[in-house]
């Protein structure tokens, strides 16, 4: 059993805030294949196309037949714990600050032996375990031995919480509470146990539905926030920047049409001003504050979520300028991820297909329900996933894009 995480005591302001020392982040290029899969929530190992051997650690040749035809295949992770150890000493600062720390040696049913971080609910050897991959605070994949059947509070495991960004007892900022998506995200964060959710709303004179319901929740505080206005962002960061643990930037402007159907650049500028420059303004003001608190106990600053679009991968001409603004935001989010990584803050990029909202009125189903999108975001925070493609459309586009981006471009140009 995992002891449920208790609400942390108020921080003693006299003490120095603990700074982050990342776990070892160096990996060879081949080993990054595990990270690439873990970033999307999958546990994959190298598998030989010729003889079927599943091997670990990753190599440049099959250890059995020397074939170079090695592919990453998803694993169920079933295996047997052969032995475990409790570290009371480590030469690495990250672990030194978190001792004691439990490790295990797991013989995977698929063949290889893995060194893993052990979940506290896994008993002594011999024991059946399920191995999964997670991103650690350095953003690199590590393997974790989970109990076959976890208890209700297994997410509160001390080791696991270091790998994930669970909203429980954390304080979040959702940058736009006026949209259905924003409200769904707020509700999902509250349901996941967030302590405080600050909800941004620009242009408070515009009365839109749903905001009152959200603000009635005891965890929710409405805050003025206009991402087009640098001063507005600076003022809010001055007020709450030092307390926010999770930023969810869902503010966006979405208009349809491409280049020829509309004259001038005003709409495209408005899209860029929120979707791209808005992210930039937000990152410049809130980024440093998050980085400074990334090792601040069990509920320290942990993650930054960007609501992008599957159109960021390849332009969808009927929503051409919106696609371009999301591609710009995606590129900037990669920069943000690189800059946040040294502090151990995870940048989660969410790439939904068309959302079932007023700006996709003409888009035929399937469309992503705001609540489904919100749940996918919370799941990504809980599971430590870095790239999320929620919904069937996003998954399908991703598959086509991975298969051949040029073919996808042609297909999208033809309107499918």
């Amino acid at each position, binding site marked *: 059993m995992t002891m449920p995480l208790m609400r942390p005591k108020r921080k003693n302001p006299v003490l120095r805030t603990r700074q982050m020392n990342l*776990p*070892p982040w160096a990996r060879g290029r081949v*080993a990054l294949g595990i990270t690439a899969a873990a970033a999307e929530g999958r546990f994959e190992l190298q598998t030989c196309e010729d003889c079927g051997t599943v091997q670990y650690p990753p190599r440049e040749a099959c250890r059995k037949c020397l074939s170079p035809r090695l592919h990453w295949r998803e694993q169920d992770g079933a295996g047997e714990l052969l032995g475990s150890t409790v570290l009371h000493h480590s*030469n690495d600062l990250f*672990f030194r600050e978190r001792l004691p720390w439990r490790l295990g040696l797991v013989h995977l049913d698929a063949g290889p032996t*893995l*060194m893993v971080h052990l979940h506290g609910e896994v008993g002594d*050897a011999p024991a059946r375990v399920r191995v999964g991959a997670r991103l650690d605070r350095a953003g690199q994949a590590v393997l974790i031995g989970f109990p076959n059947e976890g208890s209700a509070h297994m997410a509160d495991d001390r080791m696991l919480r270091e790998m994930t960004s669970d909203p429980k007892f954390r304080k979040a900022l959702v940058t736009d509470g006026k949209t259905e998506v924003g409200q769904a995200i707020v509700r999902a964060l509250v349901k996941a146990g967030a302590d405080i959710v600050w909800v941004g709303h620009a242009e408070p004179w515009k009365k839109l539905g749903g905001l009152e319901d959200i603000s009635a929740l005891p965890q929710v505080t409405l805050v003025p926030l206009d991402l087009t206005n640098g001063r507005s962002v600076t003022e809010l960061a001055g007020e709450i920047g030092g307390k926010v643990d999770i930023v969810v930037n869902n503010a966006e402007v979405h208009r349809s049409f491409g280049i020829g159907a509309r004259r001038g650049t005003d709409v495209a500028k408005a899209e860029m001003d929120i979707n791209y420059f808005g992210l930039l303004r937000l990152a410049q003001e809130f980024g440093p504050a998050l980085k400074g608190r990334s090792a601040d106990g069990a509920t320290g600053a942990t993650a930054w979520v960007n609501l992008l679009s599957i159109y960021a991968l390849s332009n969808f001409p009927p929503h051409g300028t919106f696609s371009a603004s999301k591609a710009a935001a995606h590129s900037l989010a990669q920069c943000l991820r690189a800059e946040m990584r040294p502090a151990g803050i995870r940048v989660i990029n969410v790439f939904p297909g068309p959302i079932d909202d007023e700006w996709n009125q003409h888009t035929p189903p399937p469309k992503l329900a705001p609540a489904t999108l919100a749940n996918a975001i919370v799941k990504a925070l809980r599971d430590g996933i870095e790239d999320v493609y929620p919904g069937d459309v996003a998954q399908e586009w991703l598959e086509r894009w991975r298969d051949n981006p040029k073919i996808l471009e042609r297909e999208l140009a033809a309107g499918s």
Partner: protein
Amino acid sequence: MATRTSRMSYDGVAVAVPVTVPYQRYSTLGAHWFLGQAVAGLLEASGLAKEQIDGLCVSSFSLAPDTAVGVTQHLGLSPRWLDHVPTGGASGVMCLRRAARAVQAGDAEVVACVAADTNHVDSFRQTLGSFSDFARDATYPYGSGGPNSIFAMITANYMRSFGAKREDFGRICVDQRSNALGNPNAMFKKALSLDEYMAARPISEPIHLFDCVMPCAGAEAFLVMSEARARDMGLPHALIRGAIERHNAYADDPVMFRGGWRVDRDDLYAQAGVAPAAIDFIQTYDDYPVIAMMQFEDLGFCEKGEGPAFVRSHTMTSGGSFPNNTSGGQLSAGQAGAAGGFLGMTETIRQLSGDAGARQVPDARLGLVAGFGMVTYDRCLCTGAVILGKAEATT
């Protein structure tokens, strides 16, 4: 078992002039300094001139980015045969095997085998993450702090499988400490009781403080030459009766419970023409006591799984029924990097030359030196062993 009866013997090859450059816990000096002093020690003790060293075999971690090649220029040597053996704890056996063949083939007359490492205050930590590709990718990110955690899990698995108890490993460590008290070069000068062993702080359970070696700086070296040459020069020496090595043995064992010695031991004893019972003392590679226990089994002194009973029924001091690591081993003498792989070799030459002082094994005629090196991921890959015999007086 891989018996190779056609393998050429090591007859006529002598191993002589054991040199130890005293260990220091930390040093600001480089590996080259320790190598230089080791070679100087070989020359001084043998009476040879530098030019007469025509073969050089080097083992060192902290020498990087240099190898044996750079050492020749650094020390002004011009050998006609050169080797760099990167097998760490197995390098003593492996340098000896390579040097012996060079001497037999006439490629070199006198080979200096030298292992040296320095230990800066931060060296150990820095070595860990860059030790191997697999360590970087699959163990160091887990906070394992070097081999401690992997050997902890190997130890835990062994204890569970064969009923070993911490006390059994304690017997090995305590007896080695007793041996170290007779070795002026040993880093540890205080006796160790079983109670102290049991009460030590945990490092990576079930491994506790006295199950771990102390990294330090230092060097070990010896010369390999023909038996005739050694005799002509009047050098006390030992003879090679048999030697084996093996790499990446039992790769399909999910966790290490046996080592490569087991694959080749019949070959070893056949070459030496003796049975395990004839061995007077053994120098196991003791990075962790569980590995020493596995060597007792895998080198044929008892069956697999009988290690715990074996250590309960023997005293492993230099005067005991089964002398093991008579220098104190790395657990009590210190681990000077790659020199740890040479420690058993220099000690065995001393024992067989009657030059082991207070820790002399009475009437020592046959000694076995085992090597074990290089944890790249979840086990050590290199194993080796050599049986050395006392050179009998012929005149």
